[in-house]
C-alpha cells in the first residue's frame, strides 16, 4: 500500500486494452488461420468492485485470463490482474475519548482523528499489477504435471513466485494424488522506510521530531520468503459426486510485520493514552491447514458444493471456514446462492493495546491489527449466469461480507467488541467467459 494521492485507475479500461491487443495479434494472421487459432483459446475476464462501509477501503480489481489448448490435457494459461485501492484503513490504534493526531507513515505530514472515532489512516492508496503464466500437461498415461511463474508489483511491494505440481492417477483416474509446491520471494519497501519493531512513533510537532523519526527507521527494504506445500487427494465417489482432501503447509520466513500498523500505549486498562508504538510480528510463521471439499449434482441437475478448512499456525492463531454454494440450473441460466462463515481466534501477539508495564517487560512481538484478533465473519452472495453456449457465459455476483470482532477477555488489556473495528463490505463482480 502507498500513501500518495494519484488518480484511481480504471480496471475496465485495462481489460478492454488487453482485448484490443489480443485482437491486434490475431489480425496479423490470415483469416482462416486466425479463426483456427482462435478456436484453441479460451478467454475469461472479470471486474470486481469492492466497497467497505464508513468510507473505508474501496477497490477495483480487473482480471483477464487467456488459455491456449494444445490438446485436451495440455494448456498454457496467462493471467493479468490489476487492482486499485483507495480509502481509509484502521491503523491499529484504539478509539480514545480525546482527538488523536498521527504522523503519516512517510513522516511528511499528519492526520487527526476526532474523539470517539476509530483511527483510520485516510490516505490509503495502492495499485497492483500481477502477471502469471501456468503450463499444464500429461506425463504418460498415469501422471500429469504443471509449472508456473508469477510476478506482482505495487509501489511498496514486489513478489516473484514459482510453482510446480505433479499428479498421479489411480483406479481408472477415479483417484488423483497431487503434490504441489510454491516458492515466493517478496520485498517490501514501505513509505518512509522500515519501522523498527516496537519503537516509539515520533510525535508530530515535537522539537525532536526529525531525529525521533530517523531513529524509528531501519533501512528502506525488508524481505520474506514463503514456501508452500500442498498434498491433495481427489476422489470421484460416484457419477454425481466428487471430493477433495488437502493438507497444506506454508512456511514464511523474514519480515512479516505490517509497517503501517501501530499499537496504542496506555498506563492501564481504561487509563490515559501515553503514545504509540510500531507493531512487531515474529520473523517466521508456519501455517498448516486441512481442507475438504465436495461437489454433488442432484438428479434435477442442480449442484451443491460445500467446503471446510481448519487452519492453525505457530503464532497461536486458528480458524474455521465453512463455504456452501447451491447452483440452481434452469435451461441456459443459473442462480447460485452462496454462504461463507469464518471464525478466527487471535494470534498470541495480538492485544488491542499495550500497557506501559507490559512494555517494560520487553515483549518480542506485539500487534493490534484486528486481522490477527478474535473475530467472526460471514459472506452472503448471489451469482447469476447466462450461457450462450457451453463455454460462453456472462455472469454477475453480488456479495456482502461482514466482520464482527469479539470481546477481548484479558485481565490486563480487556476490550469491548464495540471499540474494535467491525466492517461490512459489498462486492459486485461482472464477468465473461468465451
Amino acid at each position, binding site marked *: 500500500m502507498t500513501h500518495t494521492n494519484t488518480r484511481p485507475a480504471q480496471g475496465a479500461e485495462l481489460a478492454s486494452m488487453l482485448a484490443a491487443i489480443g485482437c491486434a495479434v490475431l489480425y496479423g494472421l490470415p483469416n482462416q488461420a486466425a479463426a483456427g487459432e482462435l478456436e484453441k483459446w479460451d478467454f475469461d475476464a472479470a471486474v470486481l468492485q469492492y466497497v467497505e462501509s464508513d468510507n473505508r477501503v474501496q477497490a477495483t480489481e480487473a482480471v483477464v485470463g487467456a488459455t491456449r489448448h494444445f490438446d485436451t490435457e495440455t494448456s498454457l494459461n496467462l493471467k493479468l490482474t490489476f487492482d486499485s485501492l483507495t480509502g481509509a484503513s484502521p491503523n491499529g490504534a484504539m478509539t480514545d475519548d480525546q482527538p488523536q493526531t498521527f504522523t503519516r507513515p512517510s513522516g511528511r505530514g499528519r492526520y487527526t482523528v476526532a474523539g470517539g472515532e476509530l483511527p483510520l489512516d485516510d490516505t490509503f492508496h495502492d495499485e497492483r499489477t500481477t502477471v502469471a503464466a501456468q503450463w499444464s500437461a500429461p506425463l504418460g498415461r498415469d501422471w500429469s504435471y504443471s509449472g508456473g511463474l508469477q510476478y506482482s508489483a505495487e509501489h511498496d511491494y514486489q513478489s516473484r513466485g514459482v510453482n510446480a505440481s505433479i499428479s498421479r492417477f489411480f483406479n481408472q483416474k477415479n483417484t488423483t494424488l497431487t503434490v504441489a509446491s510454491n516458492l515466493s520471494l517478496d520485498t517490501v519497501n514501505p513509505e518512509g522506510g522500515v519501522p523498527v519493531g516496537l519503537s516509539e512513533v515520533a510525535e508530530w510537532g515535537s522539537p525532536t521530531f526529525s531525529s525521533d523519526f530517523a531513529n524509528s527507521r531501519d533501512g528502506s527494504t525488508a524481505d520474506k520468503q514463503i514456501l508452500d506445500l500442498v498434498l491433495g487427494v481427489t476422489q470421484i465417489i460416484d457419477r454425481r459426486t466428487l471430493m477433495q482432501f488437502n493438507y497444506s503447509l506454508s512456511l514464511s520466513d523474514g519480515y512479516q510485520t505490517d509497517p503501517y500498523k501501530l499499537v496504542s500505549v496506555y498506563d492501564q486498562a481504561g487509563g490515559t493514552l501515553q503514545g504509540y508504538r510500531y507493531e512487531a510480528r515474529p520473523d517466521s510463521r508456519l501455517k498448516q491447514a486441512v481442507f475438504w471439499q465436495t461437489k454433488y449434482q442432484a438428479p434435477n441437475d442442480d449442484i451443491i458444493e460445500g467446503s471446510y478448512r481448519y487452519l492453525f499456525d505457530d503464532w497461536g492463531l486458528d480458524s474455521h471456514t465453512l463455504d456452501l454454494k447451491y447452483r440452481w440450473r434452469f435451461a441456459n441460466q443459473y442462480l447460485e446462492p452462496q454462504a461463507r462463515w469464518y471464525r478466527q481466534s487471535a*494470534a498470541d501477539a495480538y492485544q488491542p493495546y499495550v500497557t506501559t508495564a507490559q512494555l517494560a517487560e520487553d515483549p518480542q512481538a506485539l500487534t493490534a491489527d484486528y486481522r490477527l484478533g478474535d473475530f467472526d465473519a460471514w459472506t452472503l452472495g448471489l451469482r447469476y449466469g447466462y450461457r450462450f453456449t457451453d463455454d460462453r457465459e456472462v455472469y454477475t455476483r453480488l456479495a456482502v461480507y461482514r466482520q464482527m470482532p469479539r470481546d477481548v477477555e484479558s485481565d490486563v488489556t480487556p476490550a469491548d467488541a464495540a471499540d474494535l473495528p467491525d466492517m461490512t463490505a459489498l462486492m459486485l463482480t461482472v464477468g465473461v467467459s468465451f
Partner: protein
Amino acid sequence: MKPLLTLSLLLLLAGCSSLGVKPWERDLLAQSDMQLVSDPIEASLDDHVYFSKEGSSGGRGFGGGGCGCN
C-alpha cells in the same frame, strides 16, 4: 499428528479403490460446473479479499505471498 495423517491417507486410499465410475460414466463430472474450482477467476478474487482481511489463507491452494495487503 504425522502418524495420524499418514494413517488417514492410507485408509482413504484403500477405501477409495472401491469408489468411482467407469470411463463412460463421466458425462456429468465432465461438465465445467462440476470441476472442483468451476470458476478460477471468482476463486482468485475471493482469495485476494480474504487474504487482505483475515489472518488465514490457502488450504484449497497456495496460501502465501504476492501481496503487501497483509
